[in-house]
């Protein structure tokens, strides 16, 4: 017997990384939201960011490094290569490391997840992936909610807090009670139309997490952070996502998105 929990958490890392590749920096969800009185400026900014950042498809080679403490150099590392299309609606990913799960392939189509286990030669459907949860259980500090926006359309109300020479500071207040944060603050690079820092707040604990994006490179005409760090202030831990190679609007082959063939 092998527990399902472990594979579900590992699977979530893969999905989270792939979703993040397409959507990190993109605020498509926010651009479509708002429209409330007093938030027109913020919404207009988000629309511009969205236009600059949105990619329909992508190819990426990424890694996630989970540190037990903010100051630790010792991490648990996951390496994947992935393809996505239709935003993050359809994604394919393959684990390169750790060695214990090398070759595991995951296909996610409209939230229907199929996992291929190379040693057993079996494809299994994985349900209840817990996209609303975090990668707790594997120590990660990102949650799917942090990386993806698809479920939060129309769930935030934005306000422009300040405007300096190089950045906008925008506050997002969720209007959906299912969102775990009470407030999210974006620091957006005005020139590159890219959020370089996001602060997350909860009612109970105040400022709980900070995400920073750096090593920005222009890839396929799109400014892309090649390193994203999430610091968990509450647990004094951090998780780093590194993008080793990526390309956008790549027209990936259909075979990788076919449930009867993606594993061959």
């Amino acid at each position, binding site marked *: 017997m092998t527990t399902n929990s472990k594979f579900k958490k590992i699977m979530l890392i893969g999905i989270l990384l792939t979703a993040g590749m397409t959507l990190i920096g993109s605020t498509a969800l926010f651009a479509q939201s708002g429209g409330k009185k007093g938030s027109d400026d913020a919404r207009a900014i988000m629309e511009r960011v969205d236009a600059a950042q949105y990619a329909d498809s992508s190819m990426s080679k990424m890694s996630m490094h989970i540190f037990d403490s903010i100051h630790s150099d010792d991490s648990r590392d996951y390496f994947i290569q992935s393809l996505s299309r239709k935003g993050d609606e359809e994604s394919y990913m393959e684990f*390169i490391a750790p060695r214990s799960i090398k070759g595991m392939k995951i296909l996610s189509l409209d939230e229907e997840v199929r996992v291929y286990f190379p040693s057993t030669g079996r494809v299994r459907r994985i*349900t209840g992936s817990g996209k609303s949860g975090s990668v707790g259980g594997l120590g990660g500090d990102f949650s799917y909610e942090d990386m993806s926006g698809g479920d939060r359309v129309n769930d935030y109300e934005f306000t422009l807090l300040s405007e300096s020479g190089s950045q906008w500071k925008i506050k997002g207040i969720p209007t959906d009670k299912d969102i775990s944060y009470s407030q999210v603050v974006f620091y957006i690079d005005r020139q590159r139309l890219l959020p370089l820092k996001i602060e997350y707040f909860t009612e109970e604990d105040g400022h709980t997490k900070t995400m920073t994006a750096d090593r920005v490179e222009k890839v396929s005409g799109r400014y892309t952070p090649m390193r994203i760090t999430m610091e968990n202030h509450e647990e004094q831990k951090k998780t780093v996502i590194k993008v080793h190679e990526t390309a956008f609007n790549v027209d990936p082959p259909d075979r990788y998105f*076919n449930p009867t063939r993606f594993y061959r």
Partner: protein
Amino acid sequence: MQIFSFRIKRLLITALVCSAWVLSVCAQTDTAKEDPFGDWPAEDPSTEDEFTAIEASSAEFGGGDFSAYGYVKSSVRLGSNLFSDDGPQSSGALTTLRLKGDWEPEQLVSAHVELNVETSRGYLNPYGFQEATGLDVVAAAGDGPTPAALQAENPHENFHTELKVDHAWGLFSTGPLDLKIGRMPLAWGTAYAFNPLDRVNSDQDLGGSEGEETPGSTGLMPSLQLGGPLSLTSYLVYEEKTRSAPAGESGEDFDNYPFGLKLQGYHGGTDWSLVFMKEVLYLGDRGSSIDGPTDTYRRWYYLGGEVFTAWADGGLYTEIACRLPGDNGSIDFSDEYGPDELIEAVAGVEYTLEGGTNLRAEYYFHGRGTADSDEYQAAGLLSGELSMLGRDYLFAMVDRTFIDYLDVGLAGLCNLNDGSFALLPEISYALRSNVQLTASGLVPYGRRGSELDGRFELSPGVLPGIDLVEGGMQLEAKISF
């Protein structure tokens, strides 16, 4: 009906010939964008230090990328009678080295190999297991070699270590066709504990262990994408189910090659397949141990299918295989048969509770079994003719991650006919990404003669009884590299 059997053979050969034709056509199609990732992880000056370890094991090998990896696993089993003098010991130790390699010599072609080295002692050694369970006495009564006799006759052989190439296959993918040949894992069926659609592998183990390997089957497996959501997959295996058939003579008759054809598709959250299969089982010169005089081989045909559909935070699934009446490789609907005896089916549900607790329940109907424990035919279990003895089973499992890297699970299997059951608790901790520590147990319960109690009298008054199920605890450390 022999004519029908001949037609099936001809159909199969035609399908293989057609596959070869499609292969040649597809090979000429433009496949330039087949590999969107290119060489990775390979030498790339822009990549970062973290890839050093991965690149080190990914080397140029005859013109393509070769990657070597695997694991070593060491287990100790502490039998429930460890501190007792009652009966033979059921403790033992097992060390497994699994060395894996991937090779992509060129675009469209890839290969994979898995080498397995096992060193075992005591209850975890196949010969030790025979002695501990009493099967050696049964073998001696049937003029078979006992472990003691085998070792006496072959004093220089190592009966503790086994080396084998378990998987070794090549894959050619082009256009809509994939062709895999060699020794590969063949695992049909998506149910968890029982897979009625798996007619190739031995029934010795329950399925469901994603971390463990499906034993390799030697043969070929072409798959053709039919367009849209449909695909057709087939296999032809050059060995029967027990892998014990002798070389030469009838063992190499084409009639003894199992095969399968599967049409599969999907629609939204639902996956389905329809299957036609031939199963071949070597029975030995004496024929069946439970069906009276038979041929040396048992050849049966099956029709089956499976459906999995997502449901809220869970899934519902069913898998069914129906044996077609007839014997010895023929299909004969005029044969006397009870419809329920031909069916093997699984119906299951899985669900994830808020908070991440995973639940699974699976009902298994085993038509070949019996609901009356007085009619159990344990000899069929030993010969591989029966996967289980009873007719109705319930498998249930719950698992959850409590703290980082710590998974706890409990599974249970119950024979609903005789009330016997076995509990399988497991706790697993990932010390590092590639270091896993696991403690698991087996707690059987049942009256004497019940299936999961495991004690049977094959020939009351003539032979001593056997005991196939012994409780115990297993500690395991696994390092992947």
